[in-house]
């Protein structure tokens, strides 16, 4: 090696460092972890109606050829109140929403729907969280987009907030 060449080594190291760090600054890491449930078929279930006068929910209802948004909620869950108006808005935009009420009672659910709106086509009741566990859901609220063949296409953990609407709608279109 010529004596002059080694002088450039630190500069080359610096250039590598700057390139790597600059790359990271321009493309921040995406912390979203893709759910393992995506692409999996729904578990089989048949839930009784959660409130009188509203249809019950079975897994067959979610294989009827059209995509559905499946929302897990509970009247005792505060974030569910926060997402309620967003679900009503999604319903208005043409998203068909079914729900599973987790560990809840008919009177409480009816009051919740009266207070915060009722965007749901069907509501099944899951008093022991059995279906919730089978779905791999860890809490309420949680929402799944299920395509017409009963396959989970998207999972949203936590309340659906206004900023999530574009993603949900895009996933909805894809599931069609």
């Amino acid at each position, binding site marked *: 090696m010529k004596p002059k060449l080694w002088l450039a080594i630190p500069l080359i190291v610096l250039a590598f460092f700057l390139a*790597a760090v600059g790359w990271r600054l321009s493309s921040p890491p995406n912390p979203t972890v893709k759910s393992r449930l995506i692409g999996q078929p729904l578990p089989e279930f048949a839930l009784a109606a959660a409130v009188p006068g509203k249809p019950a929910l079975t897994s067959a209802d979610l294989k009827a050829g059209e995509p559905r948004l499946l929302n897990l909620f509970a009247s005792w869950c505060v974030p569910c109140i926060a997402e309620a108006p967003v679900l009503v808005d999604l319903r208005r935009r043409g998203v068909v929403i079914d729900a599973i009420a987790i560990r809840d009672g008919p009177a409480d659910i009816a009051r919740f729907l009266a207070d915060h709106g009722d965007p749901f086509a069907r509501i099944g009741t899951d008093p022991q969280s059995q279906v919730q566990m089978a779905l791999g859901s860890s809490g309420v609220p949680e929402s799944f987009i299920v395509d017409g063949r009963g396959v989970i296409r998207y999972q949203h953990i936590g309340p659906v907030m206004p900023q999530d609407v574009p993603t949900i709608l895009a996933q909805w279109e894809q599931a069609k």
Partner: protein
Amino acid sequence: MIAEIGLAALSLAAALALLQFAVSLAGGRLGEVRALVVPVAVAQGALTLFAFAMLIWLFLRTDLSVRLVAANSHSLKPWFYKVAGTWGNHEGSMLLWVTVLAVAGAALALFERRLPDKALQATLGAQAALALGFFAFLLLASNPFARLYPVPPEGQGLNPLLQDPGLAFHPPTLYLGYVGLSVAFSLAVGALVTRDVGPALARAMRPWVLGAWVLLTIGITAGSYWAYYELGWGGWWFWDPVENASLMPWLAATALLHSINVLAARGGLRAWTIMLAVVAFSMSMVGTFLVRSGILTSVHSFAVDPERGTFILALLTIYIGGALALFAWRVGSVREGARFDLVSREGALVANNLILSVILGTVFVGTLYPLFVEAATGDKISVGPPYFNAVTGPLTLALALLLFLGPLLNWRRDDRPNLRRIALPLLVSMLVFAGSFLFGAMSPLARLGLAVAAGLTVASIMPLVGRNLRRTPLASWGMVISHLGVAVAIAGAASDTAFTRETLAAARPGETLTVGPWTVRFNGVDPVAGPNWTAVEGHLTATRGGTALRLDPQSRTFSDPPTETNEAAIDTVWDGQLYTVLGRQEPGGRWQLRLWWKPMVTLLWLGGALIALGGLLALIGRVLRDRRQRMRAREAFA
């Protein structure tokens, strides 16, 4: 009003830095400019210090109309944590960084008398250029004095997790060390500009490097102990990116410290010393950048702010790139230093520098490798302790072996090195190595570590043997104590690796466990509550012979933010530490318990403290000797 005064002082200091830089650039054409540059540097340091004092005052008064105070303080905090809160956030810590930079520049301007005018001027110009960029960063992208309207009724910074005396002192200690290296950087740049590299430069640089190195050593040792007791994993170094960010400047500074001695004593290693001075502060800036930008995943989480990150990255590019380019361009014209033989003090110091550089390169590559790989292939990988330990362990032992002989060699050439002096240490090493087999199986590295540590304990004292101890300069005492510290720290690390006994168990109250020589009875658990946490406290009684210890590890749950922590209960006895952690409750009423018996592990931090103490003694010795020489020179003139 206080905030505006602080901001005005900061702006004025920035303007003075610009003036200082411009005057230094114009330098030669203006003739004698030392008379101008020195007062400007001093005023700049004073104004920045004043601005920092204003920010402390705002925090002390909890002036919630200042955004930074509202976001990071609270009227109910104890006054001590209000003050410490000043630098416990991004803006405040950057202001602290700039304050240290400007005050160091002022001190250099005031006290540096060895350097020729031209070199000092160029150095202060470089220091002003450094300060200018960080002033701009503060004023344009991180204004600590920004107001908030409407004024909130209360601040948001009452996070009690951060109310820890260690966290109050740890960052400023490291910052002082980081930024102290800026002076070495500026001196190196000044020397490249004036093409004047020689012993005078080394003597000017040495106290700064020593001081910075002592503070970095203290900061790293304290940080290591903090991780040890706070994280509850029983380990003392995790190769976390933020730990590495503080280790890299320390490694460079350690190498620099040794090569400076060659330059000061013999006028050798000129280009190399300049390069190390540039690299040491570059590593400080890289470290600060990695920590503050949150660019690498770490247990120390800081918010990522791409705009600020880009700003600091631009500064890094200008300063490091500029200095390295200047180095590549100018170093050819630096006069070659004095020559020396392979077997000589210089030769040993060169070997020391090579090993330290390889360790530095290893840590640098390992820390950034995940980023390189993800940039190139998109794969996410992590580099963990197996890599770092496998490379740095043997290199550290090689470095320690070098210490057996290096300090005993003569300068320039040593035809007949005093091999008798290393016979005893080597014998001790071999005996310990052989004796270690009596203790059964352990990793080869730990066995070698014990042997080298024992030998080095003897070898480190050898340079004092046969000397008149009263006349031995303080700097030599410092060297001996630091090298002894290395032996002690290696002994602690090797002992921890070789002899630690670990017991993991699920125990019911009333059960008895054993770990190493200790019998530990699990007496039960109690609920306890603190100001903002609840905890389950386990009660353990440990007995060995006639000694009985009580340990109460806690499993804590904090309410805001909701976090669970394990508060380890650690008891130190003369020959080691008993380290206990209470885990979760299992079904069936059993509690997870983790018990470690760590013989002699405290030597690790004691060694770190000795290393720092040695540096401090050397610093005091050098400064005193300098003063004495100056006084003698003055008397000679009078």
